[in-house]
């Protein structure tokens, strides 16, 4: 559930953080005295004398500015005029001012070419990098000079919302407010509304509109009956019940799935990077899930907008708010970049954010002002770069959340309890039964020296070259955990207690956590020890190799390349492997050529190399031990006590014999003796393993990784990281012609001028964090988000207009503004501007709740109309139905077609949320398709699925032959037909036919249809029988069902 934060949720302070909107500043290194002197003596005087008259701010004031070029600031030279930058620092040949002075491009100054030495000085100056102390900030005048913002603000969509007086109309006192607007327009054109459609038509319409699936026959019958209980004699149906039906549908979870999908088009949402490799973004689906929940929970639209732009800044404690930021990072991005592309790729990414944000929330093509001022709309390039600067440091990251806090808490508690129980059981056993067993055993046993095991388990440190992690086990072994790398090298270092060593044993132990119980980490349980190296490291770090004379193993795979002898040859690949005894512990012993005498400061180092081309052939659970004699045969374990343990055993035994009882449990010897003995007890082993397994498994807390767009978090790994790709640049520059090599100053975040009141400077929405918010973030996006949704002073009115228009569009097939992503001058004008504004005001005044708007729309007469007749004379007046005088059938979208096929065939899997699927045959709703940009789902693409690269406000609805082939030949079509036939299969075909019509179309077949169907079956059954079909009756019904799914009536909703 999304929790709506309290209104005082923001511990943020509005401060005046940024420069006044419009400022840009260039940057250069501090000038040296020599540079300054050169400029002042050679350059500035010439500029003043020869150039300022036509190329300075004074000239501009006097209306004498030529070519838009200002030469009285450094920025002016860099920015240039109509012909581009005047200088390219460091490159005289590429500098317009030099060629102009040389009379090669322009002829400047026009009254006569300057002396050669002056031109040479300019050339030298440019070559020096054009050092210039005149760091004045260029005003936005250049970019803005051609745009009349005051006039721009007069455009209908940029004006304040009309406070529409929707009082009762004298002519239509009973009409719903929406209808009043519609009727007024109709009357002016001599049109009138069509009568309401039949209840069953309306039920089906509402189901598809809100849920994207058809009603089940039972549901159809239920509501049809209720609606038939007419409340008002003039109405064909009970309006009250109709309102209840809408409420019911708005509460259904399928509503969120349906409407989230509409939004995904606008948000160009996909789950892969696109471009070269099109890598998946496996944690991107949380954005889709956020959308579904947001629609279902009726998250206020202003918050819905804010979270997608800056949920991380505004609600950092809310995982849902973070998920929403997936919006900004949903665009395609190249995964293969060269150095020359780094910067332009980042500007492209900013452009994707700017363009998508602009059209999605504002219906404004701000993205069109990237290279120059917008051709149609009053948006300057400077506006564009100020908008882009908002996203300067926003990047894709992954963040981990506890999305199941209650379940996880339960898991923790359950685990703690289970572990405590197991430990208690173990302790109980150790303090009672184990002691008794030990006393009995010790009393019956004669201890002599031969029981002492000369293998000393080496306690030490084990490290992996590939970062494999090891758990140190009770028995002194190391268990590898996690995913095994392809190859690995283990380095083991120990300070042995033995002073004299003649053999080293490596045990590869079986373990239930390993594939096939191990002992290797490979999928087949094997390992291949390519090389065994032993050396001694002295106190100053000098490493000396210790030669190995021979090696033997408990088992080896062959006597050749997979023998233990091959582990000490020069080949790093060949070596000891153990297939044939997989699942069993193994030991290999390496015998030294002579005794190795060690002093206290020396360290024993063992290196195990696993480089076999077969992947993951390293050891899973390894233990090292040493022996001071060389007569030991390879064996695993060895149950005998060590010399120290033997000493304790002997002492305890003597006490037992002397006193008849064991020493008290605090005694050091009894503790050592028991520690050795317990391993012999199978009961102890069972209890110990249970405890250890619980400890290792942990509480099983489930955390979720979420793809977010934020600031200050680690970036997603990128192919070009090793080339030094910075992911973002600390400043966003104003680029001339969108070219990264033509920077013209740093752009500060700001809002499009035309959407700001002249008295506004933007400071109203600017925020910084307090200590409780997110200190790593710039809060630039939060400012944008607040401005976007501020209906009093910011862009909220436009945002509301754009959204209610989207709702209207999906209910009627066309928006009040027919270009839902373009409310600018190139877009269409609203057919009903007052209605649009009335809906927008309703939205804002009712807490931005979308469900209310749905209901307003769907309970209007305008919505309830029936289709026109073929020869309706009104068609001549308004063929496009712009004045909404009838209902036109609409082709369902790809998702609704497929979901309807699955629904009527009874195959739909209603599981909600979670990772999507690329399997075209999956049976979940189509919103759960994994959207991979290079592998778009074929059946979806046939029906105009978007390419998910740019924001799509309205899909096409094409009709193509390949679509027909899908109904005729696809596995989807056939499987649904067969399942539908199974669903209705009946001894009486007439009965089946009635049933199938009710399922597929929510109505009974007409007599003519029934007749045709019977004829079809009568023809097809013998045809199938002749082909040797064992079940011709059923299969002919499937043939029939297949065609019903292909009917126009199935995919066009009245």
């Amino acid at each position, binding site marked *: 559930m999304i929790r709506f934060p309290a209104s005082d949720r923001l511990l943020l302070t509005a401060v005046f953080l940024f420069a006044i909107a419009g400022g840009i500043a260039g940057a250069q290194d501090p000038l040296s005295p020599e540079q300054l002197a050169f400029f002042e003596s050679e350059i500035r005087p010439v500029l003043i004398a020869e150039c300022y008259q036509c190329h300075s701010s004074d000239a501009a004031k006097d209306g004498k500015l030529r070519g838009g070029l200002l030469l009285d600031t450094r920025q002016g030279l860099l920015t240039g005029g109509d012909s581009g930058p005047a200088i390219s620092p460091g490159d005289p040949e590429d500098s317009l001012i030099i060629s102009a002075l040389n009379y090669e491009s322009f002829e400047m100054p026009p009254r006569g070419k300057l002396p050669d030495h002056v031109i040479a000085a300019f050339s030298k100056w440019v070559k020096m990098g054009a050092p210039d102390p005149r760091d004045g900030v260029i005003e936005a005048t250049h970019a803005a000079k*051609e745009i*009349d913002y005051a006039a721009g603000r007069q455009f209908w969509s940029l004006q304040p919302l009309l406070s529409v007086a929707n009082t009762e109309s004298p002519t239509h006192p009973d009409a719903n407010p929406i209808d009043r607007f519609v009727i007024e327009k109709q009357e002016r054109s001599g049109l009138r509304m069509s009568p309401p459609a039949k209840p069953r038509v309306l039920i089906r319409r509402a189901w598809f509109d809100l849920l994207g699936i058809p009603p089940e026959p039972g549901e159809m019958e239920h509501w049809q009956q209720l609606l038939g209980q007419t409340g008002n004699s003039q109405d064909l149906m009970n309006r009250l019940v109709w309102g209840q039906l809408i409420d019911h549908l708005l509460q259904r979870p399928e509503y969120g799935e349906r409407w989230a999908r509409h939004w995904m088009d606008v948000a160009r949402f996909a789950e892969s990077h696109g*471009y*070269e490799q099109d890598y998946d973004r496996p944690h991107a689906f949380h954005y889709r899930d956020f959308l579904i929940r947001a629609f279902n929970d009726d998250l206020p639209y202003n918050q819905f907008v804010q979270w997608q732009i800056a949920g991380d800044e505004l609600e950092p404690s809310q995982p849902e708010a973070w998920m929403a930021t997936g919006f900004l990072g949903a665009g395609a991005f*190249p995964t*293969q970049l*060269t150095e*020359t*592309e780094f910067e332009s790729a980042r500007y*492209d990414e900013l452009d994707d954010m700017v363009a998508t944000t602009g*059209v999605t929330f504002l219906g404004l*093509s701000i993205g*069109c002002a990237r290279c120059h001022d917008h*051709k149609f*709309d*009053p948006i300057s390039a400077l506006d564009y770069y100020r908008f882009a600067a908002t996203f300067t440091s926003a990047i894709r990251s992954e963040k981990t959340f506890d999305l199941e806090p209650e379940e996880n808490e339960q898991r923790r508690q359950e685990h703690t309890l289970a572990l405590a129980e197991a430990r208690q059981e173990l302790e109980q056993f150790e303090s009672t039964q184990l002691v008794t067993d030990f006393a009995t055993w010790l009393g019956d046993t004669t201890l002599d020296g031969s029981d002492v095991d000369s293998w000393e388990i080496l306690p030490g440190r084990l490290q992996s070259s590939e970062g494999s992690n090891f758990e140190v086990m009770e028995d002194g072994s190391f268990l590898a955990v996690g995913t095994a790398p392809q190859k690995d090298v283990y380095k083991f270092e120990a300070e042995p207690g033995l002073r004299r060593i003649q053999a080293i044993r490596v045990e590869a132990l079986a373990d239930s956590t390993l594939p096939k119980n191990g002992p290797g980490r490979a999928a087949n349980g094997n390992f291949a020890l390519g090389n065994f190296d032993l050396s001694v490291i002295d106190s100053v770090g000098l490493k000396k190799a210790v030669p190995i004379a021979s090696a033997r193993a408990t088992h080896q795979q062959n006597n050749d390349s997979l023998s233990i002898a091959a582990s000490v040859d020069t080949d790093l690949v060949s070596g000891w492997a153990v297939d044939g005894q997989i699942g069993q512990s193994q030991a290999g012993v390496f015998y030294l050529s002579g005794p190795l005498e060690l002093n206290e400061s020396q360290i024993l180092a063992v290196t195990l190399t696993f480089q076999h081309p077969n992947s993951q052939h390293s050891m899973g659970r390894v233990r090292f031990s040493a022996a001071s004699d060389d007569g030991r045969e390879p064996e695993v374990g060895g149950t005998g006590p060590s010399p120290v343990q033997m000493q304790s055993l002997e002492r305890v035994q003597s006490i037992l014999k002397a006193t008849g009882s064991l020493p008290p449990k605090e005694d050091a010897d009894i503790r050592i003796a028991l520690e050795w003995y317990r391993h012999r007890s199978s009961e102890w082993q069972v209890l110990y393993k249970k405890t250890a397994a619980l400890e290792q498994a942990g509480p099983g807390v489930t955390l979720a990784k979420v793809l977010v767009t934020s600031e200050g978090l680690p970036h997603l790994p990128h192919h070009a990281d090793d080339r030094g790709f910075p992911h973002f640049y600390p400043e966003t520059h104003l680029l001339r012609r969108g070219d990264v090599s033509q920077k013209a100053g740093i752009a500060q975040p700001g809002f499009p001028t035309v959407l700001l009141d002249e008295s506004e400077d933007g400071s109203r929405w600017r925020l910084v964090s307090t200590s409780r918010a997110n200190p790593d973030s710039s809060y630039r996006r939060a400012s944008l988000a607040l401005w976007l949704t501020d209906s009093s002073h910011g862009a909220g009115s436009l945002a509301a207009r754009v959204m209610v228009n989207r709702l209207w569009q999906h209910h009627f097939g066309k928006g009040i503004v027919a270009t839902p*992503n*373009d409310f*600018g*001058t*190139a877009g*269409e004008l609203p057919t009903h501007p007052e209605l649009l504004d009335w809906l927008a005001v309703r939205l804002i005044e009712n807490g931005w709740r979308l469900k209310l708007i749905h209901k307003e729309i769907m309970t209007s007469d305008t919505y309830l109309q029936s289709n026109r*007749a*073929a020869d*309706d004379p009104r068609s001549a007046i308004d063929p496009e139905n712009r004045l909404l005088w009838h209902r036109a059938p609409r*082709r369902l979208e790809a998702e609704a077609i497929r979901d309807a096929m699955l629904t009527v065939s009874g195959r739909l899997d209603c599981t909600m949320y979670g990772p999507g699927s690329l399997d075209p045959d999956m049976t979940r709703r189509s919103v759960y398709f994994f959207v991979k*940009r*290079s592998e*778009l789902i074929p059946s979806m*693409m046939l029906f*105009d699925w978007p*390419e998910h*690269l*740019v924001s799509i*406000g309205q899909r*096409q*609805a*094409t*009709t*193509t*032959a*390949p679509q*027909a*082939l899908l*109904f005729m*030949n696809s596995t989807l*079509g*056939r499987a649904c037909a067969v399942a539908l036939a199974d669903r209705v299969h009946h001894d009486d075909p007439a009965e089946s036919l009635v049933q199938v019509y009710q399922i597929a179309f929510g109505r009974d077949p*007409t007599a003519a*249809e029934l007749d*045709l*169907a019977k004829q*079809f079956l009568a023809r097809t059954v013998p*045809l199938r029988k002749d*082909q040797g079909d064992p079940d011709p009756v059923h299969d002919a019904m499937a043939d029939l069902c297949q*065609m019903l799914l*292909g*009917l*126009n009536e199935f995919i066009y909703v*009245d």
Partner: protein
Amino acid sequence: MLIKSGIMTNTSASSMPVSSRRDWLRRAGCGFGLLGLASLLEEGGWSTPVCADEFGARSLDPLAPVAPHYEAKAKRIIWIFVNGGPSQVDTWDYKPALEKAHGKSIREYDAGFSNTTGFFRDAVGNLMKSPFEFRPRGECGKMVSSLFPHLGEHVDKMAFIHSGFTESNNHSPALFAMNTGFARMGYPCVGSWVTYGLGSESRDLPAFVVMSDPKGRGLPKGHAANWSAGFLPGVYQGTHLRPTGDAIDNLKLPVGVSPATQRGQLDFLKQLNQLHLERHASESGLAARIESFELAFRMQSAAPETIDLSNEPEHIHRLYGVGNPECDHFARQCLMARRLVERGVRFVQIYSGGMENQRSWDGHSDIQGNHQQFAEETDRPVAGLLSDLEQRGMLKDTLVIWCGEFGRLPIAQLGEKPGRDHNPHCFTAWLAGGGIKGGVSYGESDEIGYKAMVDRVHLNDLHATILHLMGLDHQRLTYLYNGRNFRLTDVAGQIIHPVIG
């Protein structure tokens, strides 16, 4: 991959998104007056958008054939996409000076050379002469590398452009740029623009077909974005013939359904749809959809027939090199291309090679072996295609394009066997057939073949020329999308008249 689009018969009359706005505008006399825009634009002082419908009247059917802007020299295009970036100095751009410069640093010729010019900054070697011999071919005496013994026969049909250049030194942006004019994803490719501009001549085959490597070497970098319709309606995207398995989705009848049963099904469907249509007689889109099933039924036989090469006589197989182990796969694709254009397909693009490195012309290592291999795969098939088109009288109005996404550097890329790295500054393309003047060379690279030098040809120029040959004015072929009129050539493009006959 699959058939992504195909024959469009109609839009639904109710939503008519493809053409409704244009239709409406046309009915309104192409005036913005009714939209109330013209006056506003004048008041606002902003420039007036180009009328989106200017390129010709069009029925409800967005794939209906449309008259070109002016008389077309070419009716159809076959684009041999030399994927991976073929080396100009080893193929068609003979550089005797490079032989003399062999072993010298490129900085002696171009001081501005940076190690980041190519893809691998740490493998920059010295200038390297071509390992292939060049000799004069045809009447025009064009110097041609030994890579192309068969194509060399056809140089008098070809116009060479030696001064092509692009922006990106990286495969997929360069591929996108060559195909769409923009280095980013999301723009319509040349084939989509042409289909949008001219519609489809075929009623039962797709208008725009793409074939990729059938040898398991993958798709070109950027995958299907290379034949994407971008923001144009999806019907204009390329239909990718799957290189293995079923070339087009859903062409085979379901198991157990015989042709007779299906015919019965479609008759039944039509009867029921007719009943529905009677109740919705005002909706022309519904009638179109009824027709789409009949089209689909025909397509079931037309498409497999086109793809099936067994009906071609033996000498045609030989001409293309079908059956030759080194080039069989490409020969089949070239022959299929001819069969497709013969049946009305407007635009066919065949990719030579798969992804990058040794899987395509991307000769980072062993440029000699790499180019030898891919030249052998394509030389005879493409030569066969040119001969075949000519003998059928189709070459005169079929434009054949040989071009990749960029060129390669004249220096060696260091490695066991020297290769050549990417070079965005220069590439060679050739055009033949459909309105092209044969035996000419346009533009020049510098003496070592590093940078386009004389009469530089930007991709926009190449695209403008291709559209021009198809009878389309690149400045008038526009599409209004999210507030802007987009063109294949963005805001540039000069037709290269000297290559036009």
